[in-house]
């Protein structure tokens, strides 16, 4: 069952990250027809977006469920908006992608070598993923932040220090599995392909202009794999070692965000000159023409309207969520508050066996004593009161003025126990005639 859920999650994230990656391409004008690059960079974007949503919800003291729902809403709204605005780009992209595939297949030189290298690279990636899922490593140093995911899963609250853990906590709540199962069994299938994809995007970018660029990229991927397998240099680096801490925020930053930034650094900011038989150049010029011709004002207005709607919906959801949370907390604390508002201790002298006095400890502060007993119980009563933290009595209710009822009080007063007010209730036992 867990594998079925994992598979569906993988498909969902693949689609979401593809659209996000495509939007990133359009926004940054860095064109590529490589689906792996688009998906892996898109995945980085949507995870960063989650971190932003989580941070906002953390400041607003909203729950982790709300953070996840907000994130999904933002992603869906933005991606639908993008699809709506740029609906023409997708068919063109796939047309160009097919053209490039056909061109690559037509290039017969070194085809066997490429297939062999691809098989090796895929095998290495599959082995590493299987290793992480199927084997456990006794490295307590690597599991430090997992407790935040469990805490968030159990309490529904956001632990602001661990945004990645909050992502797992939310996914765990969504698919109803323990956060550790989520992290060790489901997350590798979602995250490791992203990290490998980012490495592939860098390898492809670095060798794209060279002869036998694909072979070189594949060899570079093999080097990446070997580097991962021998990545344990020191204990200080355990938190950024991919195969030990693939789930951590530090790994996401080192192996996810930084390679993504490197990819953009490798692409110069200047516009490329259109070249003949160059699919990327073709898509670039087509997009520019289309952007120039298209009446984008209306779609921009529509976009603004969508964003305003999304913000209003998110705000309404937040207010509702907060009300529900407050109600829940009030209900949970009601019993505790009732229990803790008053505490009553019974004073029973050992030789007597019958209760002689009651000490009432008020939650707001202050002590009330009911009864007391005779003079001989005075010392015991004083010890009893001081043992229970009573350093001053707000009100003392005596049953009578005679030594049998007020003797213990007088001993306590003599020993220096401050008493604000003493009441004589004059209660007598009722004896039916």
């Amino acid at each position, binding site marked *: 069952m867990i594998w079925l859920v994992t598979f569906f999650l993988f498909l969902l994230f693949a689609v979401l990250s593809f659209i996000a990656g495509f939007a990133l391409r359009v926004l940054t004008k860095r064109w590529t027809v490589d689906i792996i690059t688009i998906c892996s960079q898109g995945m980085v974007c949507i995870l960063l977006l989650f971190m932003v949503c989580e941070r906002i919800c953390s400041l607003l003291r909203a729950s982790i469920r709300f953070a996840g729902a907000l994130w999904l809403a933002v992603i869906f709204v933005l991606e639908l908006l993008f699809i709506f605005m740029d609906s023409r780009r997708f068919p063109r992209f796939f047309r160009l992608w097919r053209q490039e595939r056909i061109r690559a297949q037509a290039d017969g030189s070194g085809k066997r070598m490429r297939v062999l290298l691809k098989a090796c690279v895929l095998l290495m990636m599959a082995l590493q993923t299987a290793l992480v899922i*199927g084997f456990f490593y006794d490295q307590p140093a690597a599991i430090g932040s997992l407790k935040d995911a469990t805490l968030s899963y159990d309490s529904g609250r956001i632990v602001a220090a661990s945004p990645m853990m909050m992502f797992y906590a939310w996914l765990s709540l969504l698919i109803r599995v*323990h956060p*550790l199962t989520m992290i*060790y069994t489901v997350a590798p299938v979602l995250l490791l392909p992203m990290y490998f994809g980012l490495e592939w995007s860098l390898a492809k970018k*670095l060798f794209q202009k060279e002869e036998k660029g694909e072979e070189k990229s594949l*060899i570079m991927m093999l080097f990446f794999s070997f580097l991962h397998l021998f990545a*344990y*240099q020191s204990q200080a680096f355990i938190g950024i070692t991919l195969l030990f801490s693939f789930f951590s925020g530090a790994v996401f930053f080192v192996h996810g965000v930084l390679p993504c930034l*490197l990819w953009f650094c*490798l692409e110069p900011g200047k516009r490329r000159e259109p070249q003949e038989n160059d699919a990327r150049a073709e898509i670039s010029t087509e997009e520019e023409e289309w952007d120039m011709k298209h009446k984008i004002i209306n779609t921009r207005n529509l976009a603004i309207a969508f964003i305003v709607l999304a913000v209003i919906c998110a705000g309404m959801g937040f207010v509702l969520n907060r009300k529900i949370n407050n109600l829940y907390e009030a209900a949970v604390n009601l019993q505790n508050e009732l229990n803790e508002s008053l505490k009553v201790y019974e004073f029973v002298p050992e030789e007597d066996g019958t209760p002689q006095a009651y000490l009432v400890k008020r939650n707001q502060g202050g002590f009330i004593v009911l009864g007391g007993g005779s003079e001989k119980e005075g010392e015991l009563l004083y010890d009893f009161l001081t043992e229970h933290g009573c350093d001053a009595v707000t009100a003392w209710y005596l049953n009578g003025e005679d030594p049998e009822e007020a003797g213990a009080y007088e001993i306590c007063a003599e020993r220096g126990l401050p008493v604000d007010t003493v009441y004589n209730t004059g209660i007598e036992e009722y004896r039916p005639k």
Partner: protein
Amino acid sequence: MKELLETAAAGIETLRGAGRLLILFAAAVLVICFYAWNHKDNDCPEKEPHPAVFLLSFRTAIAYAFTKLLFSEQKKGKMPRILFRQLLLMLLCLTAVFLSGKRIISEEFYAPAANTLHIRTEYIMVMDRLLAEGAGQNVISVIAPPELSPYFKPYSSRFMPLYEYPKNGDPETLPEEARIVYHQFSTSVPDMKVITDVGHRMDYDWLIVDTGRYYPEFKASEFDYELVDTVGDYELYYAGDHREGGE
């Protein structure tokens, strides 16, 4: 002074081996610089990326430099010679990678996972037993050996262990009481009086002892902890006076 030296020694121990990656990275940058310089001479400087950008990702620099090195011999000489050189270079590069860090897939680190939680089954049984015993309690305070203690909080937020995995593995970073217990559990003959004293002082309800690993002179039951259950090699003790108080 002694503490300062101990801290320095612990820091060095933690960082030991980190330099190997830096050396590999420095070598890779040199290779990249060499190619960048060659291309500069060939009037096509933009073909090679600027070496400084690789500061963003050390491993990318290393993998890129090795690949460049491997294919640099392609156009010089005859085919068998090229192949021989490429093989030699490949071996050199792989040797450098092997020497750069410890092998992750080793018995030292990896073992087949018995469950999807990636926690030893014995630990899970202990934790489940504690959760069952502490049903209704919001917090289950527990003192456990260092190998088990870090898994409590990831398993359930209801657990409150005396210590988790110390920062950088250095027990000196722990609070005093936790450090005392940690040091006791670092020997095979822990002084249970010291451990139980801390337990009573800090109001810790549960004490877990691995009988397969520790051979204390006196059992915890001698010091107001009551043996509740045994799970595998682990003995589960409950603070007697707390239990009475709780009831």
